[in-house]
C-alpha cells in the first residue's frame, strides 16, 4: 500500500477527522488511487474514442465524480435530478437507440429503489445499461440504514440476464469499465465509497466470469469481493504469521459467479470463508454455498458479512470493527472456522 493510499485508508477508517465534503476533495492526495474518483475520469477517456458512452446521475455528480466526465463531454452527460427510477429507465431508452449509458447513484438507491426498472427495462430487453451503485455496503456509516447498501448483491444477482460485478480498487474499476464497453447485456457495477486501498499494482486483465487469485494457500480459501478484498488480503498476511496458509480470491464477478474457482477452492484448500460488505443472506456467501450444494460438496464454510439485521449508526471503521470485517476480524473468523473444522 502506498503512503497516500494509507492516508486515504485512515480517512476511510474514520481515524482522520474530516467531513464528507472534505474527504471527497482531500488535497495533495493521489485521487486516482481512489475508485469512485476515477469513475468519471476513466469514462471520459473511454468516451473520447467510443461515441456510445453516455453518463447519467441523479444529483450525485460530485459524489461519484461523474462531473469529471461532464467537464469533458457535457453533451453526453445527463443529470436527471433526484429521480433514480427515471434515470435508469431513461438510460434504457438511450440504450435502445444505440448508446451505452452508465447510470450512477448510491448503491442503496440504485438496487433497492430501481430494482424493477433494472429488471424490466434493462435486463429483460438485454440492453447495455450499466447501473453503477457506488458508496456500497456500510461505507456511508452514520448516514444510516437508508444509505447502507447491504442487500444489493442479493437482489441484483437474482435478476436473470444481469451481470453483477464489484470494483476492488481504482485500477480494477478502470478494468471493469473497459470490459463493460464490450459486454452485450445489462450490468450492475458495485463501487465502494471511493477510498478503497490499492490491491492491484496496475490495471488488471480481467477475464469475464473469472475470479482473480490474489494469493495462494493450502489451509483455507478466503473468497472476498469489492471493498472487503483488501482487508481479506491483510487478514491472509496476519494468518501467515500465525502459520495458517490462506488462498485469497477476488470474486469480483458475482453473477456469473466463478463456480470453477469455488469448486477448486473446496477441493484444494478444504475450507471456505466468504467475506462481503453486505447482508450474508443472498449475497456472495449464499452464492458460494449454492455452488457447493449443487456440486454435492461439503466443506467447512463460513459466510462472513453483516448478519441479517439493520446496522447501528457509526463511522465506517467502527462498523467494520463491530462486524469483524476489518483485517484482524477476518483473521479471527478464519481461525475460528478452521478450529471448528478440526473439531
Amino acid at each position, binding site marked *: 500500500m502506498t503512503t497516500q493510499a494509507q492516508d486515504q485508508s485512515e480517512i476511510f477508517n474514520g481515524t482522520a477527522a474530516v467531513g464528507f465534503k472534505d474527504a471527497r476533495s482531500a488535497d495533495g492526495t493521489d485521487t486516482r488511487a481512489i475508485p469512485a474518483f476515477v469513475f468519471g475520469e476513466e469514462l471520459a477517456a473511454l468516451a473520447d474514442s467510443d461515441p456510445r458512452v453516455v453518463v447519467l446521475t441523479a444529483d450525485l455528480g460530485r459524489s461519484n465524480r461523474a462531473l469529471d466526465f461532464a467537464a469533458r463531454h457535457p453533451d453526453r452527460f445527463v443529470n436527471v*435530478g433526484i429521480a433514480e427510477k427515471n434515470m435508469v429507465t*431513461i438510460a*434504457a*431508452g438511450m440504450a435502445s437507440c444505440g*448508446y451505452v*449509458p452508465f447510470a450512477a447513484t448510491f448503491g442503496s438507491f440504485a438496487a433497492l429503489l430501481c430494482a424493477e426498472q433494472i429488471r*424490466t427495462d434493462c435486463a429483460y430487453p*438485454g440492453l447495455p445499461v450499466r447501473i453503477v451503485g457506488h458508496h456500497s455496503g456500510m461505507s456511508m456509516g452514520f448516514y444510516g440504514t437508508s444509505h447502507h447498501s447491504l442487500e444489493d448483491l442479493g437482489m441484483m444477482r437474482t435478476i436473470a440476464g444481469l451481470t453483477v460485478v464489484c470494483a476492488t480498487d481504482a485500477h480494477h474499476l478502470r478494468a471493469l469499465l473497459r470490459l463493460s464497453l464490450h459486454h452485450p447485456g445489462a450490468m450492475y457495477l458495485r463501487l465502494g465509497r471511493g477510498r478503497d486501498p490499492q490491491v492491484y499494482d496496475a490495471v488488471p486483465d480481467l477475464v469475464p466470469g473469472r475470479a482473480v487469485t490474489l494469493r495462494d494457500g493450502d489451509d483455507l480459501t478466503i473468497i472476498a469481493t469489492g471493498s472487503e478484498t483488501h482487508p481479506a488480503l491483510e487478514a491472509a498476511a496476519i494468518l501467515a504469521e500465525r502459520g495458517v496458509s490462506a488462498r485469497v480470491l477476488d470474486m469480483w464477478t458475482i453473477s456469473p459467479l466463478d463456480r470453477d474457482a469455488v469448486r477448486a477452492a473446496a477441493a484444494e484448500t478444504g475450507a471456505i470463508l466468504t467475506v462481503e460488505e453486505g447482508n450474508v443472506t443472498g449475497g456472495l456467501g449464499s452464492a458460494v454455498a449454492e455452488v457447493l450444494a449443487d456440486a454435492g460438496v461439503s466443506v467447512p464454510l463460513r459466510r462472513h458479512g453483516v448478519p441479517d439485521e439493520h446496522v447501528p449508526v457509526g463511522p465506517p471503521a467502527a462498523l467494520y470493527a463491530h462486524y469483524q470485517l476489518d483485517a484482524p476480524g477476518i483473521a479471527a473468523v478464519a481461525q475460528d472456522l478452521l478450529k471448528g473444522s478440526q473439531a
Partner: protein
Amino acid sequence: MGERPVPPTATAGTDLIERLSERARFVRTETVRLTRIAGAGHYSAVFSCAELFSVLYYSRLRIDPARPDWPGRDRFVLSKGHAAIGLYPVLADLGYFDPSELDTYTRLGSPFGDHPDMNKIPGVDFSSGSLGHGLSVSVGMALAGRLSSLDYRVYCMLGDGELAEGQVWEAAMAASHFGLGNVVAIVDANQLGIDGFVRDVMAAEPIEQRFAAFGWQTHRVDGHDLRALLEVFGALPDQAGRRPQVIIADTIKGKGVKRMELSPDWHVGNLAGADYDDVMAELGRGEGS
C-alpha cells in the same frame, strides 16, 4: 438523415377517414378474435385507443416495416402495455411479420404475450408491462435522437389511470427541463382502471393543467373523432422545438361494444359462443363508433 419513407397515407380526405375508421374496427375485431384464442385478455383498454392506433400507424408515424431497426424511424412506446393485443394486428397488417403468427397469441413460447416484447416482435420499439415507465423510456429515446442528430419523434401512449405512477411525473419534469420538443405523450383518458373510475380510485384530472404545470404544451381532443385526431396530430409544432407535447384524448373504455363501454367488468374478460358472435356483429355494424 438519408431516406425518409413516406407514411402509408398523407392527406385527411374522406377516403382517409373511411380507411382509418375501418382500421380502427379491424383493431377491435382482431382483439376479440385473439382474446378468444387466449381465453382471456384486455378488451376495453384496446377499444378506447383503437382510433389512436389507427391514426398513428396508418397516417402519422414515420416508419418502414421493411426496416424495423431503421435509426431514423419515429418511436412508439406503448406505456399502457396491456393494449398490446390491439397493436400486434396493426404491426402484422403493416408487414412487420406474417399475420398468421398472431394465432400463436399467448401460447407457450409465442412472441405475443399480454404485453409487448421488443426482442421478440419486429416493430415493437420498447418492451412494457409495468405501468409508469414508458415516458421515461421516451425521454431517453428523445435524448438519444438529439445526441445523434436524428429528427425522429417519440410518441408515448399512457393511460389516465397510469398517471398515478410517480415516475410519469419524474419523466414529465425531465422532458420539459431538457427541452424535448420531439416527445409526444398521448394520454388515453378512458376514465377507468381495474377497480373502477379513475376519478374515484385516484383522480388524474385536471390532466391538462398538470402537464401544463410541468412545462408541456397540451392538446385535448375527442379520442374517437378521427378528423379531430388528424387535426391535432397534424398541428403539432416542429419536433426541433423545446416544448414537449401532450395530447389528452378523451375516450371511452370499451368503446364500440355497448356492454363494455365504461364498464369495469371488461378490463379483462372473455367472450364465448353467442356472445362472441354478437360482439363481432356489433363491431361489424360499427354502432359504437
